[in-house]
């Protein structure tokens, strides 16, 4: 937000405006069935618990026991959506580390997984739509540059919507290092969208004077996790650990019965044999 930064923004705008090539990208949206899906991480003494089946889980929807239709583990391809802060503060070394971390997570995807890139400074842009072509996302990430202010909340909303655009299992990874200064949307609206979504959001926030309250709420409401780091040096390891953790999650699905359709549904997920559960606390319908 210095005058120097203003100059950089203006120069960037002028160059972009002068470009004769205008690039648009497409996202293909598909419909979704009325089934509730809950991503559940089960751990015992910090270690993921494997080998659980349908009969091992119990789910209450607004206090009403539900019949679980399906429990999947490591079977459904992932849709990994990267929503990265590309504001001024990310420029330089931090951007390089973010690119490296992004490359690492893309490199850890299977051929069936899809990935997408959303970048946000003041503008929200689709760097690459959901695709199994990792190189396309890598290229978009390599071209992204840090400039401008921060529309974190708008960017997170766009990431959620990409997750909602495909029936696959969506993991949203948000990275930001600053205060939201230019979003149009309020946090309440985007959190509402998150509660209505099956997307699980993980977030990495570089510590700053601004507390990452929005990211804390976003990850909490979606059953994800917030990582607060002092510097961007450990981004690569954190990003890979997020993917590894997500792969350890069970996808539990059921068709709601005996509950009102509208409103907030409080979820209570349990494993009969015990263990620590991490799942979204509910959903909005």
């Amino acid at each position: 937000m210095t005058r120097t930064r203003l100059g950089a923004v203006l120069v960037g705008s002028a160059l972009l405006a002068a470009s004769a090539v205008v690039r648009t990208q497409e996202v293909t949206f598909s419909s979704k069935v009325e089934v509730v899906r809950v991503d559940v991480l089960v751990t015992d003494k910090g270690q993921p618990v494997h080998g659980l089946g349908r009969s091992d889980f119990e789910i209450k929807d607004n206090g009403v026991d539900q019949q679980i239709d399906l429990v999947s583990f490591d079977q459904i391809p992932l849709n990994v959506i990267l929503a990265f802060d590309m504001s001024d503060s990310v420029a330089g070394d931090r951007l390089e580390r973010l690119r490296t971390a992004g490359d690492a997570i893309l490199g850890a995807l299977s051929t069936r997984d899809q990935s997408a890139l959303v970048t946000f400074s003041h503008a929200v842009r689709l760097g690459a739509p959901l695709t199994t072509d990792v190189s396309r996302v890598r290229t978009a990430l390599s071209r992204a540059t840090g400039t401008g202010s921060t529309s974190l909340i708008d960017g997170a909303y766009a990431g959620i919507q990409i997750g909602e655009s495909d029936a696959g299992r969506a993991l949203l990874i948000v990275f930001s290092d600053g205060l939201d200064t230019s979003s149009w949307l309020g946090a309440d609206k985007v959190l509402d969208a998150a509660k209505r979504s099956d997307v699980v959001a993980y977030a990495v926030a570089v510590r700053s004077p601004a507390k990452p309250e929005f990211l804390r709420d976003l990850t909490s409401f979606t059953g994800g996790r917030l990582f607060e780091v002092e510097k961007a040096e450990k981004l690569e390891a954190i990003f890979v650990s997020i993917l590894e953790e997500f792969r350890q999650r069970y996808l539990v699905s059921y068709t709601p019965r005996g509950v009102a359709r509208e409103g907030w549904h409080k979820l209570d997920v349990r494993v009969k044999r015990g263990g620590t559960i991490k799942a979204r606390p509910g959903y909005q319908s």
Partner: protein
Amino acid sequence: MPRSTSNSRARRLVGAAALLWLAYSVAALAADDPNARVLRLERWLKATVRHEPGTRDDSSREVAAWSYADLRVLRFDEIVIAKLLHHPGASIRVASQRDIPAYTAWQVGRLRDLAEAYATENGHNRLLVRGALLHGDIAMTNPATGALESGNDGIRVQSIDGEAVGLDASPIHWQMARLLFDAARPESDAVARRWYIATAAWMQSREQHDTTHLRHAREMFPNDAVLQFLSGCQQETYAGPEIQATAKTAVLPAGYHLDIESESAALRDAETFLRRALMLDPAMTEARIRLGHVLLARGRPQDAAETLRAADTANEPTELQYFHAMFLGQAEESLGRVEQARESYTRASTLFPRAQSPYLALGALATRRGERATALKETQRLFDLPAAAVEIDEPWWSYRVMQARNADALLAALFSAPIQ
């Protein structure tokens, strides 16, 4: 100024520096050389006469180069000479003021000679106004204020993304200009009013926030609608996340404090100022639009909707029509009037087809309604925006400086008019 033609350049001022100025804290100042003191005053008088208002010329450069300590003494001497210009026979208080040494008999005599000479040649009020314009020009054209040192009356905080990244001395020239305009009252009130409006707008356009400047302006001109409007805009900005975060986290030297209230208090003050602006000038549509936004932020969508519905934006700049549509949409949405909200957001998107906020708003509205396909369609429209165009065509990103879009024009008009 709220009704003037929009300036597209203002919309590009995303990310300008936010400089917060502080209330006073007086500290010690070393004594000055007696002869140098009067000589400096004489040089200032010459610079004042020679300076071309609105420019950075040799005269302004000379005065800008003086140290903070020298300027503090000069500030005192200017008030004395102003008094003598009005009343050549007036007594001069020879006792020292705080750390500024008392005048010697020779200095008193020289001050009287200078006052007599300059009053005869220039007219006393015109000289004071020229002096005020000189100091104001230095404050605007010499952004460097020097390192923070013991004795600064004020400091300013520079912030980036809500984080304080630097402290330096606040430009004493603004205060010197205000004192000279005070001394030229009431004869020069017309030019003073225009100067306050233009300079307050200039500060807001550069995101250099000075609470004192507008407070003093309101004290001088309590019934000026534009000053009330700018005060409301200032408090609205103070309530924003960036200024609030800066105010909470800035580590200041002992004895200083930031003149920034909490978010809720700033919004309350913003509402008060904007309502007063509208009371003084009910046709000030921009104040009505801003008031609507403030009321939304205060959690009063019904009041906001009524305020915004009463705004006639037909002849306003397109950016204001856009803000009006977006804020009204937000108010209608909060009141559960979905179709009206959708209509408002759509109108905004028609005004600025390459702005991203209407698509975000329409998408989020659809999401809340459970209209998934519509939400995804609006998101697709957002992603379809050409990357280059969206950079320059989103009024929301410059909302915080939009009210000051004609600051440079106001200054140009001020400087081109003859000084009375």
